[in-house]
C-alpha cells in the first residue's frame, strides 16, 4: 500500500482543524484544535512509511469521531434552544 503523501497529510490536517472549529462548545473546540496541532507537530519528523500510514489511518478515524460529535452537539444545541420540530410539538419525521 502506498504511503500517504505530504499533500494528503496536509489535507487531512486542514480537514481536522476545519471540523474541530465547528464544535459549538468553546472548551471542546479549543481542545480539539490544540490537540490536533500538537499531535501533527509531534509526528512531523516520522519517516517510516508504515508508521506514517498507521498515524494517517488513526487521524482519519479521529476525523470521523469529530464529525459525529460536531453533528451531535449541533443537534443538542438546537434541542436546547427549542429550534426543532420536537420541542414545538410537531410530529418528529426524522426518527429512523
Amino acid at each position, binding site marked *: 500500500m502506498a504511503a500517504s503523501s505530504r499533500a494528503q497529510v496536509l489535507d487531512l490536517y486542514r480537514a481536522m482543524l476545519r471540523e474541530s472549529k465547528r464544535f459549538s*462548545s*468553546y472548551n*471542546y473546540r*479549543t*481542545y480539539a484544535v490544540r490537540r490536533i496541532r*500538537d499531535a501533527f507537530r509531534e509526528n512531523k519528523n516520522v519517516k517510516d512509511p508504515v508508521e506514517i500510514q498507521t498515524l494517517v489511518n488513526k487521524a482519519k478515524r479521529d476525523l470521523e*469521531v*469529530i464529525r459525529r*460529535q460536531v453533528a451531535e*452537539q449541533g443537534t443538542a444545541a438546537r434541542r436546547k434552544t427549542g429550534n426543532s420540530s420536537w420541542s414545538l410539538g410537531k410530529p418528529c419525521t426524522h426518527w429512523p
Partner: protein
Amino acid sequence: RILTYYTVNLLKLNFNANPIGVDDVKNEKQKKKISRFYLDSQATTMIDPRVFDKMIPYMTYVYGNSHSRNHFFGWESENAVEEARENIIRLINGKNNKEIIFTSGATESNNLAIIGICTYYNNINKNKNHIITSQIEHKCILQSCRYLQTKGFEVTYLKPNQKGIIELEDIKKNIKPNTILASFIFVNNEIGVIQDIKNIGKMCKENQILFHTDASQAIGKVPIDVQEMNIDLMSISAHKIYGPKGIGALFIKRKKPNIRLNAMMHGGGQERGMRSGTLPTHLIVGLGEAIQLCSREMERDNKKLIFFFNYVKQYLSKNLDYIIFNGCQINRYHGNLNISFLFVEGESLLMSLNDIALSSGSACTSNTLEPSYVLRSIGVSEDIAHTSIRIGFNRFTTFFEVQKLCVDLVNSVKRLRSISPLYEMELEKNNSSSDTLQFVWT
C-alpha cells in the same frame, strides 16, 4: 521546547504569555460570547467527546446483556465490558481482569470496600473489629465508618498535619492486633494533597492488614501501580476523568488468601457475586475509554495543569495580600488549588464570580453552612475556612479562562474587602496596637 518556553516565561513573570499555544478567543466579540467557565473539576468533569463517541453504539444498536451467554448480542456486549476491564487493569498494573468489579460509582465502591470487607472478616473472627482511616476522607468513607461504629466496630480517625499529610508514625502507633483495614484517600478532593500511599501500603503489608484507597481523584491523573504500592482495594470513579456519571469500579487484588467481602447488592451473582445487577455496558465502555485516554494524555495534561497552577499562584500572590494556599504545595495534584482569601466570605466571593463555576469545598457538603471539615482538620481556623474556595483545572481548561479567573478573582476580592469591616480593622491594626483577634464573632 515547550518546557523551556514555560520556564523562561515564569522567570520573566510575564503574565501576558500564552505558552500553551492555541487559544481561539482572539477578538473581543468572541470573548463576550463565552459566558460560562467551568473550574470545578473536582466535583465532576465534562465528558470527553471521544468517550461519548465510543459509548454511542452501546446505547443504540449494541444492546445485548453482557451476561447472556447464548447468543451473539450478549457476546458482543461481554467483549466490550472485558475490553474496559483490560484498560483499567493495564493502567494500574493489575494482574487479572477479574480484579475489577464495576459499581455505580466511587461511593458504592467505598461502601462495598469498607462495610463489605469489615463485616465479612468480623463474622469469621469477632475480635477483628478495628479500622484506621483519616479525618480528611471523603464523606462516604466517613459515613461508612460511622455506620460500622454503630454496629460495634472501633474506628480510629487520624488527624493529618498542617500540610494535609497523614504521618506514617501515627498510622504505625494505631495499628493493633485487631485491625482489619486501613483506608486513606489517594488525592484529597478538597485540598489536592497526595498521601504517601507507597509507604502506607508497605506498612499495611508488613502488619498484614488490608489497605484500601479512594483513588477517584487520582486515577488517570497521577501514576498508580497497585503492585508497587501494595494496594489491596481501590475505588475508581468515571465522571472525575471525563467519563460518564453513574459508573465506577472497585479493584480487589487477587492474592493468597483471597480477599472476600459481603455483597451489598444481591441478585443474579454478577461480578463474582460481589455486586449483582445487569452491567450498564455503555457506561462501562465509557469508563474504559476514559481510562485509556487518561493513560495516553496524563503527561500532557499534567504539564498544562502545573503551568496553570503556578500561574494562578504567582498572579494572586503578586496582586493580593492576606491569601493562604491550603495543603502541601509539593506533594499534590496540580489540577486542584484551594485558597483562603482572608476577610472575604467564600460564598460571597463565589456569588460575585457569577460566570465562573467554582466551589467553596466538597460538592457533597456544598449545601451545608458548615466550614470544610478537611480544612478544619489540617488546622485552619473556622473563620479562615469560611473564606476558602477551591479551583479545579481540567484537560479542557484554556489559558483565557485561567487569565479571566485571575483578573476576576483579584477584582472581586478587592471589592469585597473594600466593604469588609474586618479588613478595615486589620489595616487599622497595622497602624495601631489593637488586635482584631480579640473580637469574637458569632
